[in-house]
């Protein structure tokens, strides 16, 4: 699904990623853990194609295509989804309008027909229910005045609706209390499938108790310094990142 080779990237002229190698197969969930400043969020933004994140070396192949040659919305339409650590507020655009525009833009880019209002509404209701996303939330401007939990639930709803092949969850647990975390984790787990890969980026083990990964990587100073099974997360929780810190 995804093959990252010797990836180097700069932000504001400073090298943050210093040679990442990572292969993610369909049907697997990879966790990337690491201390603050290790490059976790940078990796997620590079994969999504954000401006200001300059790749200086290496390659990223997604489903056999050169991901780095695709622009942001092409990547999304091709099935790459980034759940933001800090979802952006979009005043004046209701969540419903946004969801419909996004879904239909992706369908159009893939050569599928656009969903009409009734079909779309039915689909949104169906996907919203397990995530406790109310009609009221759908009518409000996207993320504006949403609580931390609402923002993250809205992100997972977008993911459920857009059905990406590769989902990158950037610190999805930040700002969540335990109940909200469970709702979000259940939402993510229900999307696990043999055709879909996930990269879960997190600082803490807590999230990984609920979204159990197949592989855990430790990112430090822009490199993956250790890779192991799900038990590695527990080990890090006990020992901390001291041995990997700067």
């Amino acid at each position, binding site marked *: 699904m995804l093959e990252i080779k010797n990836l180097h990237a700069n932000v504001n002229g400073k090298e943050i990623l210093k040679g990442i190698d990572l292969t993610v197969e369909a049907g697997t969930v990879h966790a990337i853990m690491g201390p603050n400043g290790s490059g976790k969020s940078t990796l997620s933004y590079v994969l*999504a*194609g*954000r*401006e200001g994140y300059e790749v200086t070396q290496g390659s990223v192949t997604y489903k056999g295509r050169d991901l780095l040659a695709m*622009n*942001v*919305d092409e*990547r*999304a*339409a091709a099935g790459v*989804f*980034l759940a*933001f650590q800090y*979802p*952006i*507020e*979009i*005043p*004046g*655009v209701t969540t419903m*309008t*946004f969801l419909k*525009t*996004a879904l239909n*833009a*992706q369908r159009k*880019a893939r050569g599928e027909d656009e969903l009409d209002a009734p079909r779309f509404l039915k689909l949104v209701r169906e996907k919203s229910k397990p995530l406790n996303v109310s009609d009221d939330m759908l009518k409000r*401007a996207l993320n504006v005045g949403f609580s931390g939990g609402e923002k993250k639930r809205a992100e997972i709803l*977008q993911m459920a609706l*857009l059905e990406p092949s590769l989902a990158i969850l950037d610190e999805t647990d930040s700002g969540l209390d335990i109940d909200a975390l469970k709702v979000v984790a259940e939402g993510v787990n229900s999307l696990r499938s043999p055709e879909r890969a996930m990269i879960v980026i997190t600082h803490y083990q807590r999230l990984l108790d609920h979204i159990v990964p197949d592989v855990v990587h430790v990112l430090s100073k822009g490199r993956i310094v250790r890779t192991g099974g799900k038990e590695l997360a527990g080990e890090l929780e006990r020992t901390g990142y001291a041995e990997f810190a700067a």
Partner: protein
Amino acid sequence: MTDAARNFIETYERERAALPGAGLAWLAACRADALKAFAEAGLPHRRLEDWRYTDLARALEKATLSPAPQPQGAVALPDAAARPSIAAFHGIDRHVAVFVNGRLQSDLALELPHGVTLVPLAEALGEPWVRQLVETKVATQAGNVIALNTALMRDGLGLHVARGVKLDKPLHLIFLATDDGASHVRVLVRLEEGAEATIFETHVDAGARSYFVDQVTDVSLAEGATLAHVKIQDEGAEAIHLASLTAVLGAAAKLSSFSLTLGAKLSRSQSFVTFKGEGGEAHVNGATALAGSQHGDHFCMMDHAVPQCASSTLFKTVLDGASTGVFQGNVMVRPDAQKADGRQMSNALLLSRDASMNAKPELEIYADDVQCAHGSTIGELNRDAIFFLRARGIDEHTARQLLISAFLDESFETVPHEAAREDLRALAAGWFERHQEKTS
């Protein structure tokens, strides 16, 4: 004195005997006073505080200022695909009156409810309520160029709605320009106690190039009367559009005025609202989208002369190319106007490095128990928001359009007529589409 000012004075000298209401002594005196006031003040220039950002005198130097002619033959309407403004409000059941080159073309034989009087300006000038509306204002109207209109007003109409009567459908005034020249239009509106009316206005060019529209709308609302006013200004690329709205509100009267500004090389839209009775409410709002070297100025004066009145002003401005936007607002709360509620906001979105916005919201408060707030923002499209939308598969063009529409939408929300609101939204979205085609 500028050539343009001299030109207007000569027009007056030459044509005053032929102007409507020429036989009325009060009017002749009024026009003469107005002309004198105009001649003394001259055309506004940027050394005047109220005209700091808009040089009307200079803009008029190059305009064709001889009186715009009575149109000859049938008017060829612009293609609605190219100028969608021409089709705005057409889906709404309404009364229509058409002006071409500032001359009324409709016979006004409309099926109006009992108690509603709609007459051409020449006839309206014979009404006592019109005299009161026009005559009392001349002294203060030199600096804001309304005096020029009073001296030269050539056509227009008067709408009178009797006590407790509701104008059954919106009255849609369509102003088309087929020939170059100056037009001076006066619209006079009096709503008696508890009366209600909605007025739509559309201004579109239909063949004219260099022309000057000078329109004054005087509104007088008696106790509990309600007027909704929705205007689309989509004049031609070389046009100069000057519109003034004066409104006097009696107790518990309500005025809502909205203007969508898309056209003209230079436009100035000024509103002067005075509260004369307690419990009045006035909302003057607008949305503006300009490009190229267009210049759009909104000037709004809210005069809280009595207690317990509420006013709000919200202007949203989108500027591309090297266009210029202006917002000047003043909320005056006089010593007796306790419990006044005054709000004023200007938000501008600059789509280009060469666009510029001038905002000057002012509060002048002489009472101590009031609630007033004002603010102004000038910004760019949020790059993070564009990235977020694109990361969900929305292409950049659509993302920008979505954000621009969202930016303007808050102002459209203030339009009380739902179908009109939808037409305005569609026009704004269409502006972006057409505009992008032009630039890309």
